């Protein structure tokens, strides 16, 4: 029962967050600086999602050669920069992770 309450509460919370601005009436104008700030949302949020996965090992900052996820991530960044291919970047990054894991 409590579990279903939790599910209901989480559903309302996440849907409310997604719908918050989308469902505002058209006549509500957002302040002029807001779109300029929101322009940076995707790059900022996405990088905040993946950077810790590369730079932290078991919660500790690691810039050593032994951090194969950092090396594979740098390789994937290069591939993404050069080819702009999503699936290709994922495959290349996973392959690089296994190669670096085997090397170091």
């Amino acid at each position, binding site marked *: 029962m409590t579990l279903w309450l939790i599910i209901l509460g989480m559903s309302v*919370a996440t849907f409310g967050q997604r719908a918050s601005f989308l469902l505002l009436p058209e006549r509500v104008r957002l302040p002029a600086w807001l779109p300029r*700030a929101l322009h940076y949302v995707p790059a900022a949020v996405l990088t905040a999602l993946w*950077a810790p996965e590369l730079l932290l090992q078991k*919660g500790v900052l690691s810039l050593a050669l032994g951090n194969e996820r950092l090396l594979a991530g740098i390789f994937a960044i290069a591939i993404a920069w050069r080819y702009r291919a999503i699936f290709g970047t994922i495959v290349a*990054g*996973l392959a690089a992770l296994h190669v670096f894991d085997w090397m170091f």
Partner: protein
Amino acid sequence: MAAVGIPPLEAMAMSVLVYAGAAMLAAVQLIAEGSPALIVVLAAFIVNLRLFMYSASIRAYFAGVSLGRRLVVSYALVDNPYALFIQRYGTRPDEPGKFDYFFGLAIPVWLCWQATVAAGLLIGNQLPADWKLDFAAPLAFIALTIPLLRDRPMVAAAVSAGTTAVLAHGLPLRLGLALGAVVGITVGFLWGKHLGTKSA
């Protein structure tokens, strides 16, 4: 999820109704620790604060779209369709077909996500961990981020957001993620304003 006593039906219901991976991971962890319901819901809310930003960011593209369609977009507004949509329309906001494009992204992402959750519930931990498939998620986010870095303010936003998220990772409830996002957006905004570059 079975490991912490969440039955398959409830797990699947959560996946369909909540449809937010990070929030579910946080919830599962807190449920396992025996946290009160209110704390679990609050944690899910905080973990997903970025959804407010997505909603505000994407609003302008769906001006004049019917309420029903905006409800659909609201439900399906998760990281990947959002990022792919911005990649397509970010520099061309006036081109038509925005709802159809978003809907076309949302369906496969939704199906893949639900199928993966169902498979996870069925197969559990039998996939070998040494395939390192968990790394596919950050790789996908990298692939979505890099093409966005078209000018210096954008690069500054990404670098400062990533650095902050790494330094603040010790904060509870993944607040480091929210803090990183806020710092990145602020840095990019101020830098862009300083240069006087126009934002698309």
